[in-house]
């Protein structure tokens, strides 16, 4: 664990207790059962009332400006119970992007994000993870202003968002726009993914952008987007660290209670050593994640490499541990009733999101001179 301030320790402990008492895996199961879409709105309101949605937002706009490490500590706890929520999309990704905007843009959107009344999400082709033939949005200037057309997605939490931070291609390069979800000409449809969240595909058909809707032009949008994506990757890696830790601990408990051949299966050395290896891998992952969170707060120029290291290890290790979780639980781990499958499914979605382990190893390697 990183060395924390007293306030950070209090915040983390609050997150631990709240996730356990109010936000167990049951909340995710409500989504699988179709009881709500994307998240439980009451749970999100509770998080907002505790100030979690405003952790990265300046005090002047209704937040606490408490830093990425603080938010990361919470995301880790929420990852433990696989809590579906827009906290990552809105309070981390969108809030980071909006900080690149004008004072007027910040004043318009940040207070709503901070108090939870506005949910914002980032819409960029495949989350900045280039895949051939990925559809994208093109923007052109007409006599009355910008017009956007095309298709983009999957957009994480896209079915929940009131506001999209949208990247589009113009003649001069990538540009970032602010697009309210109720803009005429914008439609979205839900994708049913294995992790039961609510990503969306957005279709834009000549959507007009309002006067205050240009967040960043081609001169710096690509750079801002890459920074936003790096912060998003680190926050996601923190969540994945929590998921991997819980998947491991749940499995470890099972090894201590399951009896076969008249003995606890946790007494078999073959399983003990696999457990020891998982434990070691989690230590590596925690180091990479905490270092990357600290790099955001320190405005460290090495953030891109640190973000890729954290996301690469998170993808690899959560995938491996979720596989072990199913395997070591045996038959019960194959049932929907057991949580193992939920971790397995979320692991794969989280790995792909914003670049999988292979993509980030490659990116890290380039940044480190390979």
């Amino acid at each position, binding site marked *: 664990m990183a060395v924390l301030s007293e306030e950070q320790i209090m915040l983390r402990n609050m997150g631990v207790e709240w996730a356990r008492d109010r936000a167990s895996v049951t909340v995710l199961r409500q989504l699988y059962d179709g009881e709500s879409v994307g998240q439980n709105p009451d749970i999100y309101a509770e998080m907002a009332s505790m100030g979690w949605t405003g952790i990265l937002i300046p005090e002047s706009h209704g937040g606490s400006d408490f830093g990425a490490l603080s938010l990361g500590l919470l995301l880790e706890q929420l990852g433990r119970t696989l809590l579906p929520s827009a906290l990552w999309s809105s309070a981390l990704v969108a809030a980071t992007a909006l900080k690149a905007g004008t004072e007027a843009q910040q004043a318009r959107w940040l207070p709503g994000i901070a108090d939870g009344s506005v949910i914002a999400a980032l819409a960029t082709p495949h989350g900045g993870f280039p895949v051939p033939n990925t559809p994208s949005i093109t923007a052109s200037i007409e006599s009355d202003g910008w017009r956007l057309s095309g298709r983009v997605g999957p957009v994480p939490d896209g079915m929940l968002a009131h506001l999209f931070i949208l990247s589009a291609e113009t003649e001069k390069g990538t540009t970032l726009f602010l697009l309210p979800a109720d803009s005429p000409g914008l439609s979205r449809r839900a994708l049913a993914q294995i992790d039961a969240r609510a990503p969306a595909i957005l279709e834009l058909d000549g959507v007009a952008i309002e006067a205050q809707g240009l967040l960043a032009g081609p001169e710096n949008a690509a750079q801002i987007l890459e920074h936003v994506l790096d912060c998003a990757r680190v926050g996601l890696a923190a969540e994945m660290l929590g998921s991997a830790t819980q998947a491991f601990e749940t499995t470890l408990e099972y090894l201590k209670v399951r009896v076969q051949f008249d003995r606890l299966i946790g007494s078999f050395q073959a399983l003990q050593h696999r457990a020891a290896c998982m434990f070691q891998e989690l*230590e590596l992952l925690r*180091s990479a994640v905490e270092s990357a969170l600290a790099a955001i707060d320190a405005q460290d120029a090495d953030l891109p490499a640190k973000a890729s290291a954290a996301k690469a290890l998170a993808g690899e290790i959560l995938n491996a541990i979720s596989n072990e979780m199913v395997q070591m639980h045996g038959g019960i781990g194959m049932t929907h009733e057991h949580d193992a499958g939920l971790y397995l499914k979320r692991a794969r979605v989280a790995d792909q999101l914003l670049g999988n382990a292979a993509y980030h190893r490659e990116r890290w390697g380039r940044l480190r001179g390979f």
Partner: protein
Amino acid sequence: MAHAKTVEQREQIWSDDPTAFRAQAAEWIAANFPPQLKGCNPLIFQNDADAAAADADFELWRERVAAAGLGMPHWPRRYGGAGLTAEQADIIRLELAAAGAFNPMRSNGTMMLGPTLMEYGTEEQKLQHLPFIASHERRWCQGFSEPGAGSDLASLKTRAEDLGDHFLVNGQKIWTSGGDQADWCFCLVRTDNSRKQGGISFLLIDMKSPGVEARPIVLISGSTHFSEVFLSDVKVPKANLVGEVNQGWSIAKRLLTFERGGLTEGRGEAPSLAPLAREYVGADAEGRIADPDLRGRLIRNALRSEAYNLTLKRHAADAAAQQAGPIPISAIKNLGSGVAQERSELLIELLGWRGLGWEGEGYAFAELEATRAWLHSKAFSIYGGSYEVQNNITSKRVLGLPDQG
């Protein structure tokens, strides 16, 4: 009593202010570190007494560090240290690294026996030994493993019989690092046959005692770093017992945590293999290492090494802040041996046939070194408690998994 020759000579007044202290430390190192030693591998001097004695620069550096007590800066002055705080000691370590210098005292004595004596030794034993450890004037070897007691160390059989004013020791030790060069040996001996762990005692044995014989063992790397040590009717004074009779296993377990800690230092801080790989394997049109599979594995190892180094830093920060339980050494040791062994394998792989040389012409010195280092790296997961023993420790003591029935 003989005294380390350097104890009386210290004059440096160190500042309590961390910033001023850092500047003082940097200044001291710049004024005292012989530039010829910059960037050289300190392991050569650590492992080879003859090489150390023959190198005038090393001897000068060792004497200067000893005089200032900076080999073990956080030890009290009466034990040969500088009486500094742990934070100040850490600053010294960082400033040494920043200057391309190294601590010349790093040894079995500083890493293992010193901290152990600090906890379990009598004041007499501390005064007798610690100053010579801090000045590296006395080399120590570890008499733990035996032919029949490797991973199962507690099954050791070397016997120490209580003959009133002394113990009479008989038995054989093996894998004794630097046994043929050591002045003294800290040794586990059996003082009670009725209990396994509870019948072991911890003795300090002068290697010049009659009946002690060390024979070097030739390893796969050609190294003769390890010895067999034969103990035949060796008389050891009672004053050389550390702790109580039959308390040796607890002391040894504590010492092994120091050893594992010491063995994990600096792993993965080795330079990037990317430039070497381009040189030996070639580069593609974009300047990347030409063999994409090798490149992918090099990246993976380098990324894990970076995360491992961050883990070491986190371990140190946790220990200093005392907020979280420190990361278990058993886990750190296996992670560290893993990244270092992978790196050695990758290095000889990228060298191709030039990574297969044993000696003589046709190979560069660095190539021959890499090959020997690769062979040596196989020991990382064997010594100090094998990879499998570390996993047993993690499973049982850290994860609380049940004993194998």
